[in-house]
């Protein structure tokens, strides 16, 4: 069985669980619990361990998707999940600049622990107060279009948009070498 493990990460409310739900062939195994801190201002429930989704294609081939919790207090889960990942996507809500700093923290964390290919998906781009792609990229620390990972707009509620995002990440991964992960 050949399995690719893709981690979906990002700040709270960026759309990670929704992203996985949109493309998984199985009902997503989630670990949502009632939010008790400032997260409750954004939504009622939040991921406290990880989400799991799966996409099977062809004989003995599958894509496993792991959604991390967004809250920093669960960063031990980020560590566990990124160690086994072949690639990851960082989702960022473009209409909440308050979370750009959290996105940068997560990216720094992941980059320090794993060299695997990554990309950035900007969500909520249809919101009136959303920052455009170029300005969001600068705010996230990416100044040069030549030296940055793929950054695209993603609608996590739409299967087609999620599929396109995964295609972008996979094609980007094919340009790099997928690092051999320890068993």
């Amino acid at each position, binding site marked *: *069985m*050949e*399995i*690719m493990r893709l981690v979906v990460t990002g700040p709270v409310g960026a759309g990670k669980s929704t992203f996985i739900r949109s*493309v998984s062939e199985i009902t997503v195994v989630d670990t949502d619990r009632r939010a008790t801190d400032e997260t409750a201002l954004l939504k009622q429930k939040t991921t406290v361990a990880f989400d799991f989704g799966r*996409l099977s*294609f*062809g004989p003995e*081939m599958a*894509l496993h998707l792991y959604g991390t919790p967004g809250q*920093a207090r669960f*960063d*031990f889960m*980020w*560590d566990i999940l990124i160690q086994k990942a*072949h690639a990851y996507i960082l989702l960022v809500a473009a209409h*909440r*600049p*308050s979370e*750009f*700093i959290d996105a*940068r*923290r*997560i990216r*720094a*964390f992941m980059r*320090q622990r794993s060299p695997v290919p990554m990309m950035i998906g900007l969500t909520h781009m249809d919101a009136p*107060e959303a*920052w*455009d792609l170029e*300005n969001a990229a*600068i*705010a996230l*620390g990416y*100044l040069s279009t030549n030296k940055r990972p793929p950054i695209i707009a993603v609608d996590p509620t739409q*299967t*087609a948009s999620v*599929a*396109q995002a*995964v*295609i972008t990440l*996979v*094609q980007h*991964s*094919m340009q790099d070498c*997928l690092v*051999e*992960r*320890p*068993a």
Partner: protein
Amino acid sequence: MAVTGYLSEFSLAELFNFLEQGSKTGLLTLCTLSDAQPENHENHYIWFNQGRIVAAANRLDQHGLAYMIGQRGWLGEHTALRVAQTCNVTTPIGLSLKTQGLLTVEQLKMLFYTQVMRQVCTLFTLKDAWFQFDCKAPLPFAEMTGLNAPATEVTLAALRVLKDWSALASKLPEPTSAVMSMIDGKPQQKLNQTEWQLWEFANGTLSLQAIAHQLQLPLAKVQQIAFRLVTAGLVEEVPLVTLMTAPPKPEPLPMEAAATETTTVSHSFLHNLVGFLKGKV
């Protein structure tokens, strides 16, 4: 497209870093909010050229600098404005006045310090304000001394003297985080002693808590210094996972062992995946 928001969500320090890193040119407008008297709001204007601050004012009639010159008795306000009108429309008024021998370099520096450094630094004490950056706004040559400063230099100066950090509490790096250098070599900015001391630890391995202990500084102070270095574009915050004692791993079942054996992903796998996903687009 205008960049807009609230300082309570995207702090002025982050905003200045964004404008400098993006080499932005245009007008930043800050509109302070007052719940008690909504009709009493104040507007502040800061002009940027390629990420550097060139002028600041609380009015848009381009008379602010002339008024300052008049207040100091160096030149009549009307004289300064007449000079501005007769000179090249793309030359800062400060340079025109210097060229004509009406102001000295030292006087221009003092004007720039009052107009930009002092005026803008006080804006860092705002708890909240609505902001908008207009990249199409023209440069206000009648408000410009001809001097400029990198936006993050102003940020460093302002944050060094900031007394009340409550509005920035959620932005401060966590005590359990480390900081990692983002530049090659040493900083070009003029750092003070404690900033240099923290810079020496910017290797991503030691938590701010541990750094505070080593430097014998209060943790809150180290967090504030770290925030200054982050918003100056010198370091980034790297969360460090707290090591926990893990429970012993159970022996994997034979099926699980087989499933995890394949640790690399082949190109044919990726091609098949792309082909499959294209059917969903």
